[in-house]
């Protein structure tokens, strides 16, 4: 995606994945980090939970044909804790997920989602319990994650959602590819550096 991509609405069906504290080692097992590009990451989300040692698929929401083609991932508390691997949101995104709705996200994971333009919004735990039940019952329910209105929209109701203001602004205004924005201030960066005594190795 280019740095100017404005992200305001994601629509599609949902994939419910239950559990608190789902760590990035579960999302992408570490051995896949030995690849020097992200290009194949879409094959790996929850690999060790989805496939046995014999390579045969196991029952798992990511293998469930009812959720095929889903755009919105529904998760619980502290999703994405652990390792800083950007491979985790890359894998979910390349698998086809374009937004994550959760009860809460771990800090580095949330930063990585923003860095690749993948919106991650939070809703109240009791709302999430209802949504996960609902999608397990009827996987065809259409979802819209609307960052303009900060709501998750369903056919029969609208649920308020949250995300840090700066993150929302960055996605809506297409400022989430930070390098360009940061590089504009390189002269100021050099000024700040010149004021820090350690940058000059404490020369008197």
């Amino acid at each position, binding site marked *: 995606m280019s740095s100017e991509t404005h992200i305001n609405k994601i629509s599609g069906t949902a994939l419910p994945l239950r559990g608190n*504290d789902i760590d990035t080692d579960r999302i992408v097992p570490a051995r896949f980090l030995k690849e020097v590009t992200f290009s194949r990451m879409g094959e790996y989300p929850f690999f060790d939970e989805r496939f046995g040692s014999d390579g045969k698929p196991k029952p798992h929401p990511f293998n469930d044909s009812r959720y095929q083609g889903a755009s919105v991932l529904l998760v619980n508390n502290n999703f994405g804790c652990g390792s800083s691997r*950007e491979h985790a949101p890359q894998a979910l995104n390349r698998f086809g997920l374009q937004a994550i709705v959760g009860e*809460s996200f771990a*800090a580095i994971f949330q930063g990585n989602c923003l860095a690749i333009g993948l919106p991650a919004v939070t809703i109240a735990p009791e709302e999430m319990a209802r949504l996960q039940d609902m999608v397990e019952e009827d996987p065809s329910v259409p979802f819209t994650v609307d960052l303009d209105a900060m709501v998750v929209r369903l056919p029969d109701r609208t649920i308020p959602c949250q995300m840090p203001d700066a993150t929302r602004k960055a996605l809506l205004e297409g400022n989430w590819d930070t390098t360009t924005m940061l590089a504009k201030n390189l002269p100021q960066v050099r000024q700040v550096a010149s004021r820090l005594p350690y*940058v000059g190795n404490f020369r008197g």
Partner: protein
Amino acid sequence: MSQQTLYDKIWDSHTVEILPTGQTQLFIGLHLVHEVTSPQAFDMMREQGLKIAFPERTFATADHIVPTDMRSRPFLDDQAEEMMQAIEQNAREFAIDFYGLDSDRQGIVHVIGPQLGLTQPGMTIACGDSHTSTHGAFGSLAFGIGTTQVRDVLATQTLALDRLKVRRIEVNGQLGRGVYAKDVILAIIRKLGVSGGKGFAYEYAGPVIEGLGMDGRMTVCNMSIEGGALCGYINPDQTTFDYMKGRPFVPTGAAFDRAETYWRSMASDTNAVFDDVVRMEGASIEPTVAWGINPGQSVGISERLPLPEESGDPDTTRKAYQHTGFEPGAPILGLPIDVAFVGSCTNSRLSDLRAAAEVVKGRHVDPRVRALAVPGSVQVKIDAEREGLDRIFEEAGFEWREAGCSMCLAINPDQLKGREVCASSSNRNFIGRQGSPTGRTMLMSPAMVAAAALNGKIVDVRNL
């Protein structure tokens, strides 16, 4: 909002601009790079025609994929070899210092930064690794970042960040015999939870923290991220300054005095204001073992494993029992182990190896146990061998290895097999973390790992 804390002082003095999004653009004083999370960032730099803004503030090493037995090249694992060649090529092409396998400065990135004196108080530090929080032990603000953010730091030496709140965690009194920094941080995470630190920087303070040496302080700060805190720090003091003296990247003479004055000025003021304060008693901390599938699922050595319905999160506790196969309510004492691992960025420094060696000296590892001692850096290895620790480990039946991340994340030949249970001095007991999807990890101090290795099961190191 916090005021006059070390966090506030470093944040304010490193602020470049408030960005259009409202985030702060923060100058990064030191960028550490390793082989696993950087190749895509260098590729993006090439694609976009970007140059490194401050190559002299960027240092690279290789640690995660490095074999700790046979270091000869090419590596037997083609993927590891390709990754190693990528970091070598990137360091050459972008003209940054690289400490590879032929360097006596090679080692785990969070071990060599402090050891070389690259890590200093009053600094901001970033690295594409969540355990970058380790460097907070020196009174720096140190953040783990993702690969796209690695590109940001390479290209601009800055990051776009949200200001955090500051929680002071005071550990008062003193620690009992056989209780280490590892037990302190496991007890903190147990109390505050694995997501309790979300939105906070942790300031660790109080007599117990101040009484720790730099190695122990690094162990505590290392696991801040396991408590959900993006960074954790300890105010610099005489222990810190004594450690700094004479290290390769630390100034000498009058410049050292100026440095010390600056470092002192960056510590939290006595009247600093915190967003939250938590107090704990050091004497109440036992040798602690994280038995489950996250580092918050731990018990003191005299306790029993929790019943799911009595735990704070019954579903996650049940999930832990599904994976471990342990019996709810069973004593932690006596749980059998197959593998013992002393190492990782949490506990692979000289004092960690000494603590483990003291336990195994003159004794022997249970014949059913595979035991590894893996120094965190080439320099730690040299120092340990000078003291004869290698002989103590080997005579006890441990394998004595070369420097690297080894079995902490197991993307090198050091891995669990099948359902093996590992007593590990590392930082994460996540499902599959040590290389086997069905393997099991229990986290504890190096001394407790050593004691478990000797007995083939979890024991109380204080009773040896």
